[in-house]
C-alpha cells in the first residue's frame, strides 16, 4: 500500500485528536478550545475543563481562563475528576486505519494498543533483515515486497510493491483507452488521449456559457452552429476590454480617494451620499486626459503644500527650542547676579550688626554710670534710651 513510510517510525503512533467517533459525543465532553472530546482532561480553579495540552497552549498566550477570562495560573490547573477522564476514555472510536479497510471500533483508551498489536492494516516494519520499508501487518508474513525484481517486459528493476503501477506505465506494454476501449502502447496513450474521438468534452465556448458537451467526433457539428462559438471573438474582445477598464477604474478610484474624502459627511444627508457614489461611477467613464492632468496637478500641489507645512513646523519647533535656551541662559545669569548682590547685602548686614552692637555696649556703659547718682526720673529716661537702641538693633536685623 503506502510505498515508503519514514523508516524512523517503526510503528505508527495514534493521534487521539484526529480520531473519528462512532457516535457524536455529548457537547459536555468537548474541550472548549479544540472542540473535540477531552484528551487528558484537566480542571481550572474556576471549574472549567480543558484538554491538558490545549490549556497549556492557551496559558502560554494569556494567563486567563479561555471561557470566563478570569485570571488563571499554571498552578490553578489540576487533573479533572477521574470520572470525566473515564467518560471520555470510554467513548467508542473508529480505528485510524479505517480508510485502509480496518472496520474495528473500540473504546478510545484501547485504540492505541489495537493499532500497536492487533490492527491488520497498521504499518509495521518489514520483517526482512536489512529492509527499512514499512508494510501492513496482514502482509508482513509473506516475502519482502521492497525487493527489486525485473519487469518481465521492459527488464527494468522495479520494486515488487510497485509492479502493479509499473504495468500501467511500462513502455513495452499496451493499455486500453478509457474512452474508446482501443488498445495503445503506453508511450502513445498520452497523445491519443488528446484526439480520442470518443471522449466526451465540453463545447469550446463553455466558459462563455454554452452547456453543450458531446463526444469529440460529434462536436464539430455542434461547433458549426453554436451561437456561443460564433460570438466568441466578440465576447473575448469584450472580456479583455472589461478587464483593462476595471484596472483603469481601480487606478482612477484610488486617485479619487486621495482627493475626495471617501467618507460622506453625515450632515449632508443621503442625497449627497448618492451623488458622491454617482461621481465615482461617472468619474471612471468621463475622466479625460485633461482631467487626469488636472488631478495630477492638484495632487502634486497638495503634496508640495504638505511638505511646506512640514518644513514650517520644523522651523517653528527649532525657534522654540532656541528661545527657550536663550531664556534659560539669561535666567541663569540673573540668578548669579542675584546671589552676588545677596552676598554683598549679607556682608553689609554683618558689618552693621557689629557696629550697632559695639555702639550699644559703649552707650549702655555710659548710661549705667550716669544713672547712679541721678533721681528716679533720670533713670526712666535711661530706660527709654535703651529701648530705642534695642529697637534700632531689631530694625537692622530686619534688614
Amino acid at each position, binding site marked *: 500500500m503506502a510505498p515508503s513510510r519514514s523508516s524512523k517510525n517503526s510503528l505508527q503512533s495514534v493521534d487521539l485528536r484526529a480520531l473519528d467517533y462512532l457516535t457524536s459525543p455529548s457537547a459536555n465532553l468537548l474541550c472548549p*478550545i479544540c*472542540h473535540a472530546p477531552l484528551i487528558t482532561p484537566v480542571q481550572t480553579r474556576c471549574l472549567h475543563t480543558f484538554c491538558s495540552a*490545549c490549556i497549556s497552549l*492557551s496559558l502560554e*498566550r494569556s494567563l486567563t481562563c*479561555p471561557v470566563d477570562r478570569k485570571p488563571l495560573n499554571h498552578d490553578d490547573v489540576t487533573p479533572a475528576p477521574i470520572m470525566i477522564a473515564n467518560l471520555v476514555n470510554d467513548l467508542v472510536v473508529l480505528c485510524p486505519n479505517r480508510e485502509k479497510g480496518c472496520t474495528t471500533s473500540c473504546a478510545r483508551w484501547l485504540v492505541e494498543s489495537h493499532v500497536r498489536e492487533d490492527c491488520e492494516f497498521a504499518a509495521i516494519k518489514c520483517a526482512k533483515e536489512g529492509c527499512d520499508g514499512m508494510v501492513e501487518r496482514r502482509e508482513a508474513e509473506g516475502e519482502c515486497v521492497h525487493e527489486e525484481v525485473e519487469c518481465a517486459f521492459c527488464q527494468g528493476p522495479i520494486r515488487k510493491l510497485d509492479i502493479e503501477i509499473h504495468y500501467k506505465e511500462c513502455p513495452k506494454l499496451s493499455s486500453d483507452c478509457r474512452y474508446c476501449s482501443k488498445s495503445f502502447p503506453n508511450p502513445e496513450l498520452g497523445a491519443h488521449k488528446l484526439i480520442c474521438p470518443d471522449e466526451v468534452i465540453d463545447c469550446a465556448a463553455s466558459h462563455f456559457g454554452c452547456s453543450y458537451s458531446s463526444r469529440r467526433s460529434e462536436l464539430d457539428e455542434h461547433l458549426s452552429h453554436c451561437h456561443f462559438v460564433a460570438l466568441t471573438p466578440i465576447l473575448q474582445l469584450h472580456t479583455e476590454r472589461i478587464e483593462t477598464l476595471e484596472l483603469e477604474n481601480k487606478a482612477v478610484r484610488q486617485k479619487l480617494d486621495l482627493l475626495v474624502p*471617501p*467618507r460622506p459627511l*453625515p450632515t449632508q444627508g443621503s442625497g449627497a451620499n*448618492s451623488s458622491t457614489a454617482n461621481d465615482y461611477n461617472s468619474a471612471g467613464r468621463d475622466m479625460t486626459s485633461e482631467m487626469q492632468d488636472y488631478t495630477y496637478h492638484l495632487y502634486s500641489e497638495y503634496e508640495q503644500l504638505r511638505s511646506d507645512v512640514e518644513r514650517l513646523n520644523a522651523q517653528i519647533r527649532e525657534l522654540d527650542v532656541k528661545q527657550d535656551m536663550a531664556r534659560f541662559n539669561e535666567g541663569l545669569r540673573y540668578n548669579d547676579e542675584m546671589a552676588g548682590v545677596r552676598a554683598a547685602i549679607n556682608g553689609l548686614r554683618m558689618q552693621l550688626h557689629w557696629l550697632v552692637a559695639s555702639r550699644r555696649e559703649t552707650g549702655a556703659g555710659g548710661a549705667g554710670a550716669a544713672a547712679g547718682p541721678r533721681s528716679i526720673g533720670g533713670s526712666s529716661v535711661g530706660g527709654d534710651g535703651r529701648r530705642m537702641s534695642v529697637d534700632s538693633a531689631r530694625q537692622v536685623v530686619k534688614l
Partner: protein
Amino acid sequence: MAAVKRITRELAEFSNNPLPGVSAGLVSEKDVFKWNVILTGPKGSPYSGGVFTLNLNLPTEYPFKPPTLNFTTKIYHPNVSNDDKGSMCLGILRSDSWKPSCKISQVLEMAAGLLNEPNVDDAVETSIADEYKNSPDSFEKTAREWTRQYAK
C-alpha cells in the same frame, strides 16, 4: 495543526446546521484559514434584498487569536469601516474580549444580527452611528440606496 482540525470540525458543523441568511464555505479547498461568507440582508432592515459577501480570515493561532471579518461588498453600516477593507467591528472579535471557546458560527450569527440591529456603542463609523441615532430616516434611505447600488 490543532487549529486546522478545529476549523474543519467547525466547518462541518456549520454545513450541517447552517444559520438562516448566512452561507459560508472555504475560498479554496486547500486553505481552511480563508472562508467566504455570504450574508443576505434581513427582511425589514434597510439591507433587505441585498447580498453581501465577506471574507473571514482565521489566524494561524486560532482559536487563541480572533478571526477577522471584512465586507467585500460596500455597505452603509455603523459597524463596518467605510474603506477598502470594510472591516467589521464586533465586540467579540477584539483581541482583548475574544475567547478561544467562541465558535465561528457564533461570530457569523453576531454579524448577521448586526445587519438587523446595528450596535452604535461599538461603532467604527461614528458619523454613520450618529446619523443612525439622530436621523434614522436619512440613515435608512442611504443604507437602502447603497444596498441597491452595491449589493444587488
